[in-house]
């Protein structure tokens, strides 16, 4: 059986990518299971999708613990613990990462013995991000080696038909380019054997005693505990204020920031809370003197790190 796990952020099209790959497998005569999974969080937060494909009936259910292929739409997810990108991978697993950094660097960073392939990040333009899904499914199809160009094309056409010909064509072009890019590595993803229910090991349960409702009911006694959640990890772009240009208008970025993550101090100077800024870039679009620049998060982090060294 093939077990494939997709990682992306809500809005990056990983759900579509898994559907395309699943449909392509199906067209090749496989039994297929395809399921996206996301929690309470939305656009920008980590999401997962799973595809299982086999020539026999698939009885396995649920999340994929030990994937043969892991596809990562956004390399900034790799260090995010909650995204679980490296969970259950071993030397047999193939990693496909959308990243401008070379595979060797990822292998070294993750101390990973399996194969790593990267897809170049095409652009900083978020409008192009909608096509990451197609690109990833195209590359994955080639790495699997059992999906023809024709099946991939048909799957994309079927899945995206409702969005119109222009969208289908653009996705086809992206997917087929990625498919061809991985030509040298065709078939490098292997299958792994079925897991049997008798091998199942219980997770390490924590047993909680049954308490009185006054103790056991989920009550929150502190105010605004949501600040404990670091939604700054959702960000792929970082808004950076140039204080020379800021004309201290007082209200624009601070009122418009949907998250209320920009406060203005007594002197009228705005401060962005990077632990919580989700990177929507509303402030960048609204600032009248264009005092807020949009910097790719990784670049900004590299600059931070360099700053700390000096």
């Amino acid at each position, binding site marked *: 059986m093939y077990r494939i796990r997709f990682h992306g952020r*809500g*809005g990056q099209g990983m759900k579509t990518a898994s559907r395309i790959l699943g449909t392509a497998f199906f067209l090749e005569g496989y039994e297929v299971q395809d399921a996206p999974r996301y929690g*309470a*969080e*939305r*656009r*920008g*937060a980590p999401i997962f999708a799973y595809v299982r494909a086999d020539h026999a009936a698939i009885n396995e259910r649920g999340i994929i613990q030990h994937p043969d292929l892991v596809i990562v739409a956004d390399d900034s997810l790799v260090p995010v613990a909650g995204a679980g990108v490296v969970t259950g991978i071993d030397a047999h697993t193939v990693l496909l990462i959308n990243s401008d950094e070379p595979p060797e660097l990822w292998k070294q960073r993750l101390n990973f013995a399996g194969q790593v392939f990267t897809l170049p990040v095409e652009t900083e333009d*978020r*409008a192009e991000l909608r096509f990451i899904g197609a690109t990833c499914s195209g590359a994955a199809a080639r790495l699997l080696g059992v999906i023809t160009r024709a099946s991939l094309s048909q799957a994309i056409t079927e899945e995206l038909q*409702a969005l*119109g*010909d*222009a969208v289908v064509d653009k996705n086809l072009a992206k997917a087929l380019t990625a498919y061809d890019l991985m030509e040298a590595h065709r078939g490098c993803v292997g299958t792994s054997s079925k897991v049997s229910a008798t091998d199942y090991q219980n997770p390490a349960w924590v047993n909680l005693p049954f308490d009185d409702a006054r103790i056991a009911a*989920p009550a*929150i006694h502190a*105010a*605004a*505990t*949501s*600040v*404990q*959640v*670091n*939604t700054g990890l*959702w*960000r792929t772009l970082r808004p950076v204020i140039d204080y020379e240009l800021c004309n201290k*208008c*007082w*209200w624009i970025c*601070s*009122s*418009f*920031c*949907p*998250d*209320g*993550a920009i*406060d*203005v*101090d007594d002197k009228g100077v705005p401060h962005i*809370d990077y*632990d*919580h800024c*989700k*990177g*929507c*870039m*509303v402030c*960048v*679009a*609204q600032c009248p003197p264009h005092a807020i620049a949009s910097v790719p998060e990784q670049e900004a982090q590299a600059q931070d790190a360099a700053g700390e060294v000096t």
Partner: protein
Amino acid sequence: MTDTAETIFKRLRDLPSTHLLGTGTPMCAGCGGLQALHQIYDIIGEKSVFINAAGCMTLLSVFPFTPFRGSWLYTAMASAPAGAQGVRDALDILLQQQRIAAEEDMEVVVLTGDGAAYGMGLSSTSGAMERDLDFLYICYDNEGYGNTGQQYSGATPHAALTSTSKGPRGFSGFKKDLFSIWAAHEPAYVATVIGTEPLDLARKIDKARNMTGPRMIIALAPCPTGWDYDPKQSVDIGKLAVRTGIWPLKEYENGKVVHTKIPKQRKPVEEYLQCQGRFRHLFEPQRNDELIDALQAKVDSYWRDITE
């Protein structure tokens, strides 16, 4: 009765510059509903109890996290105003029995999406207004069932694509006029607001806060996920909703409706439609002049006789 002369929000500089609502919520990046809520919360303040029906904003408070500084109660989708009745009654009893002091009293606030407000919850809202319940109702209107993947609701505009209204003509129904439905109950106050007009919003919430009885607010909530646009455009789209006349800013009080902003030179609605994926089928692959003109005509006919 208060009017703009009495409000503490006279100029943009009077807007709050630090914010009360906690950050770190699970709302989408660029959520127009959260934008309105954080502005509203700055004015209502922490002495408030939120009664929340199922929707995106239910996820604001997922144990053990909450952005609120006061209490929060979750109800079934159709019954947030009934929940508010219970909370108000409980507070009144505590006050009556002098178990809490008058200054410990709290504002009872219903927070629901449009799916609840325009549809499922309309009956219990009607009942609450009938009983003259002293509460504030905030509907963030993202024009669909956002939390479950943007199915159409009673608030979805004509021709919009949703996950249950696909095809070249989009949604075949028309957005309900909830403002008028609510105003027909003659509650203390009804107003429309939007987070992209923060001063207008602040004045209205401040006014509502100082009244008693049912005070009803509808906030249009540009939704990058459900309306399909890049999150950074959220404010531009909200401003266009007002400037094209699609979203009239108005209030009802003492039997009278007053527009708080009459767009002088209304921009063509096309400018608003064009930047949202949910209306893309009106422009691609061919332009659908008939539908675009029909949408424009509806807005024109709304404003034809509006003078105040």
